């Protein structure tokens, strides 16, 4: 299959507009969170980490991981390579966001809880999610045949989605200390309106960043596969 022309293969000369907008939005949100959002009365400045921590957590759990699971399931059904690339990109960008969650969490925890790490249900779940995505990435790196790699990783992606509720349930039964979600609870959120606005803006900015990373990563995967196709033809 030679769908690839030379222009397709050339790296895009134009700067990635979506990535630019996303980065600008993230900077804007930082400025707002820093200078134009009140400091929380009890937690002080440490509370400001919520804007990145909770946003990244939402995106990693509810966007990246769900996308990985759905793309994996659809791949086994439709056998479309594009879906495999979506799963691959979602996993890798999701790994970055989960890493951000795991780094920002302890920074806040040291100030508020007095400990970098506790074996609380949410922390433990996130840590295991991180391990799962990490082993997913290692599996991808360990299989050379492209079709086989796609099938194996799709199987792991689906099983991981089935595993997460079990991990969550069992670590929850173990014990929990983490503050309950304060944004999505049905009663009035326990946050001032300015903080809520800042958080929603941060969430949007980081979602945009996620989309931009995802698209960039997807392009890398597409180009890599095209190069592999061309090399195979040349050989």
């Amino acid at each position: 299959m030679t769908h690839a022309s030379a222009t397709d293969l050339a790296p895009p000369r134009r700067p990635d507009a979506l990535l630019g907008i996303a980065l600008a939005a993230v900077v804007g949100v930082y400025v707002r969170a820093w200078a134009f959002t009140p400091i929380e009365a009890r937690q002080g400045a440490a509370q400001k980490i919520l804007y990145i921590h909770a946003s990244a957590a939402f995106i990693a759990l509810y966007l990246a991981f769900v996308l990985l699971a759905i793309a994996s399931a659809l791949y086994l059904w439709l056998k479309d390579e594009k879906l495999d690339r979506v799963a691959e990109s979602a996993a890798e960008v999701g790994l970055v966001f989960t890493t951000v969650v795991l780094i920002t969490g302890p920074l806040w925890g040291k100030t508020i809880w007095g400990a970098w790490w506790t074996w609380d249900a949410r922390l433990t779940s996130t840590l295991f999610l991180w391990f799962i995505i990490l082993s997913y990435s290692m599996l991808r790196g360990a299989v050379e045949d492209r079709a086989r790699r796609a099938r194996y990783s799709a199987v792991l992606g689906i099983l991981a989605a089935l595993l997460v509720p079990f991990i969550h349930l069992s670590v929850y039964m173990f014990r929990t200390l983490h503050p309950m979600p304060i944004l999505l609870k049905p009663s009035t959120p326990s946050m001032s309106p300015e903080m809520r606005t800042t958080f929603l803006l941060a969430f949007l900015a980081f979602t945009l960043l996620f989309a931009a990373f995802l698209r960039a990563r997807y392009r890398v995967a597409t180009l890599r596969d095209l190069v592999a196709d061309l090399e195979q033809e040349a050989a």
Partner: protein
Amino acid sequence: MREGTAPSTMQAALLVAKKDLAIEFRTRTAFLSALVFALLGVTIFYFAWDSTAVAASDLAPGVLWVIFIFAALLGLQRSFGSELADRAIDGLLGAPVSRESIYLGKALANLVFVCGVLAVTLPAVVLFYNLPLDRGVLALSGIALLAAIGLVAVGTLFSAMAVNTRMAELLLPMLSLPFFVPIVMAAAQSSARLMAGRPIAEAWPWLRILVAFDIVFVVACTLAFPFTLDE
């Protein structure tokens, strides 16, 4: 059961399991190494804690299940590793049996394998850690069986995948261990309550997790297995 036709899924699964167990019975390499590994682990763990500060019976459940999953990995590795030589897997795939029955047969053989390891490790833990297990033996065996089913369901599938990768034996633990987390937690928590002489009702919430895990992953892995084979 039909006569004179291709075997049903369960019959074929039993044949595959019998084949794997016959190989294991004649060589005994994996079973013996898993067994020695488990017994060594149980004894080494005892010296990793200050026995005057922590009662041995408090350590026992954790030791048992951690050692158990590592010993089981040794057996799981061999499950599809043994099919690599002379591409034996091709013969299996060419046989008039369904993919699902190959998986179920492999899983069944692995279940026998890990239950065999447990049958020695469990009494060893009871002996070395001075557990007063007069009433809980039956319940503990039940927990062990539930834990073994879930472990084998996931491990057999990952064994089929791991042998075809560049990292082979290194990848299997990395893929499997996150999946063993709920198993270890539920098995350790429920057996800790039993070993402490608490009523079985206290272990019930954890047992429900084990049962649910077994059902979900036996079904999911059986369905997923055909995707791990090269056509």
